[in-house]
């Protein structure tokens, strides 16, 4: 039991370090958008997701509607549903309903990737450890970024806003090299979103992302359906 927990924490360490720097950028972004340090940390503590938080902060800053917030979070984070389904078939007998309720909170791209790559079934204890270290990194990084955002020179904090975007590129580019249909999905999404951004600027940027991503995924799925086991 205990060794499973430590093993999870250890596997989560590189994720936590990565999150520390990326959430530092989020903390700065949030404070720059007009949120307080407490609000920025509160978002990271209760959401534990990068893309959704950035989009959420944009909606808060633009005083968008709650419907906009719900649909945006739903579409941006719907990938977690797929990971959750996939992960639910990887867990061992130690997962009762309570464990599922707890562990599901910590399903992120990176945590999912590490968990699913384990050779055997995974225990609830392991998952809790695997979630803990990244969560500490995510929350501490947000706190540091939100606080230091007011202390560091403006020129430095401004350039750190690019960090989250850099991480997004690092997530999507390597798989795109191996599977060319992903390049189509990426290219279409970028083209549609750029078009919306410049031609229909009245559309909220978070919402534009949702429209672009859905259109692109549907078109790519029609042309290149994914076969079993991919």
């Amino acid at each position, binding site marked *: 039991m205990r060794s499973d927990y430590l093993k999870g924490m250890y596997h989560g360490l*590189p994720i936590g*370090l*990565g999150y520390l720097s*990326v959430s530092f950028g989020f903390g700065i972004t949030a404070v720059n958008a007009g949120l307080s340090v407490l*609000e920025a940390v509160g*978002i990271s503590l*209760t*959401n534990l997701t990068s893309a959704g*938080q*950035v989009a*959420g902060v944009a909606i808060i800053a633009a*005083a968008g509607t*709650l419907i906009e*917030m719900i649909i945006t979070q739903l*579409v941006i*984070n719907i*990938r977690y*549903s*797929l990971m959750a*389904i996939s*992960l*639910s*078939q990887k867990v061992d007998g130690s997962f009762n*309903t309570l464990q*599922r*309720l707890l562990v*599901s*909170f910590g*399903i992120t791209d990176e945590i999912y990737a590490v968990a699913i790559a384990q050779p055997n079934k995974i225990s609830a204890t392991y998952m809790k450890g695997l979630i803990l270290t990244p969560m500490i990194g995510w929350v501490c990084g947000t706190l540091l970024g939100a606080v230091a955002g007011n202390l560091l020179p403006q*020129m430095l904090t*401004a*350039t*750190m806003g*690019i*960090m*989250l*975007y*850099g*991480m*997004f*590129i*690092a*997530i*999507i580019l390597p798989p795109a*090299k191996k599977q060319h249909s992903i390049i189509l*999905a990426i290219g279409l*999404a*970028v083209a549609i*979103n750029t078009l919306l951004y410049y031609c229909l600027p009245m559309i909220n940027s978070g919402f*534009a992302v*949702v429209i*672009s*991503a859905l259109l*692109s*995924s*549907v078109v790519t*799925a*029609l042309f290149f*359906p994914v076969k079993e086991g*991919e």
Partner: protein
Amino acid sequence: MMSVIIYIAVMAGVTYLVRMLPFTLFRKQIKSQFIRSVLYYLPYAVLAAMTFPGIFYSTGNTVTAAVGTLVALVLAYFDLPLIVVAIAAALSAFGVGFLV
């Protein structure tokens, strides 16, 4: 102006439900190949649309942002870790900021 707390609560609630409901309720795989395919491509499309063109306005200067973007693209192409790509993009944008 609505209270930020309400926004955060809604945000957190939706994000949790999206993870919790399938993990707690679903035990079987989705049958439809089309839906599975859409869900497969969705994360890439979401992240791509979030990044472009937003990344070019992420530093407050289009030139430094473009340099940071280029550095991120090259390093990501060579499979460098997320943290390295993220930090290198910021550092290069910061460095170029002294020149422009």
